[in-house]
């Protein structure tokens, strides 16, 4: 964990301190709570989906910088995309955390690619994937 200093980089810190998508979403048509019992990260993800496209999304809750920034980066990436595309990107993210995504795939994740070093931090994996797992469950449940 010697590279933790580098891990808490500007991108992560910025999303943690100024999360653009951390707010209520009154016209959401689906929501799901994601919770990490081991560390207490607790988010509620809300989406508005129309014609198979994620037109808006937001989250509320509390947790460590990694869980909060990761959820925020995820919403940056998937809002405006078709559900299938959101699920495809989510799959890439989860594989990136396991260390099995290619460089090209990680590029597709845009800023969320900044979390790839979490794959070397087993204690923090659950924090990083919380939002993404919740997203997958929401979209898959809907199908």
């Amino acid at each position, binding site marked *: 964990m010697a590279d933790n200093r580098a*891990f808490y980089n500007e991108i992560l810190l910025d999303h943690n*301190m100024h999360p653009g998508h951390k707010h209520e979403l009154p016209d959401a048509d689906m929501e799901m709570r994601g919770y990490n019992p081991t*560390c207490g990260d607790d988010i509620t993800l809300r989406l508005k989906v129309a014609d198979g496209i994620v037109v808006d999304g937001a989250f509320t809750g509390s947790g460590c*910088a990694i869980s909060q920034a990761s959820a925020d980066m995820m919403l940056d990436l998937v809002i405006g995309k078709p559900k299938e595309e959101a699920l495809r990107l989510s799959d890439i993210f989860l594989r990136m955390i396991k260390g099995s995504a290619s460089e090209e795939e990680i590029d597709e994740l845009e800023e969320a690619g900044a979390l790839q070093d979490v794959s070397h931090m087993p204690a923090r994996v659950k924090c990083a994937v919380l939002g993404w797992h919740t997203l997958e469950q929401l979209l898959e449940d809907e199908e």
Partner: protein
Amino acid sequence: MVNEDLLAIDYKKDFPLLRELDVAYLDNSATSQRPQCVVDAESEFYLKHNANPLRGLYQLAMEATDGYENARIAVQKFINAKSEEEIIFTRNTSESLNLVAYSYGLSNLQAGDEIVTTIMEHHSNMLPWRMVAAKTGAVVKYIECAQDGSISEAALEEAITSKTKIVAMAQVGNVLGRLNPVEKAIELAHKVGAVAVIDGAQSVPHMPVDVQASDADFLAFSGHKMFGPMGIGVLYGKKKLLKKMPPFLYGGEMINWVSRETQEYAPLPHKFEAGTVNAAGAVGLHAAIDYIQSVGFEVIEAREAALTKIAFEGMQKIEGVHIIGSDKWEEHKGIITFTIEGVHPHDIAAIFDADGVNIRAGNHCAQPLLDHLGTGATARMSLAFYNTVADVERFLASLSTMRERMGYGR
């Protein structure tokens, strides 16, 4: 000896891990490090005296038995129990408390009885009592502490009534590090005919504990928090209580004889030690007790207090750091739990780790207390006598950069 001289003594030389690793190990409430003599004692048991204790009739088995039973006597003397029959070896504090709950609790409590405990207990001194309540119809009552972690005599007097059958309390809380009024609780428990169960996990390693002086009915503690091996723990119980209690676990070595239909259980303490015991662990614990006594509680307490003071006063000066519990350093027995405004405890622990400082983050197995205090997850630093001023300075240096490194005030 004045504090400066006392703090100058190098005890880390006795601890191989602390000698080798460049870390400030400040998670001693979770588990301590072990000195070479403990590792050697455990290893020597396996290398030179290993046989199944308490049953073999040959020289080697008798050596194993002696090692195990001598450890029991060492524990007896360490906590000043009247008899070695009152010392039961378990795996850890949790198992010791479960033993009392299953054996004493289930056979002595009934609907309408009350178990009095406190809101600051570790889950292992809370959940076993809830189990007893659920199975017997008894009720668990929680004494609440003030925001500074104190429990008043009035609160004790109000909670402990003629309905009370068990009073269960930690001597030192694992989150706030405060010394609880256990003597008063024991006295009140006895007045109403209840038994007092004391969780000594955070006190026994750090201060002299005398079960005859306190008159506790049961005392539970772990070897691994007092420089001994993992997997060995102790339950002290008064003989008159233990004698009447049914076994907790059944099996080998806890019986005198067994026929097809009936059996007679072994006398104390073996009635409560079913199966092959952790003799090597007990021998390691014996070495840990000898080591603690060679250092002396006077030195241990003085060093821990001096380090607590430096850490506490340093933390008070850092903007955005909030200490949970008392605002007096004297009321933190080597344990300081805190939050940093805007920084989640898991991030705190990760940044400390990058700086070579090991602390705990989360709920510390005491979620009801954190809910009661309204803090949520927190970070905790906890000291042992082998820690140094340099460890504390390293902790403070890292702590003072934390908010800035998380993006505040740039």
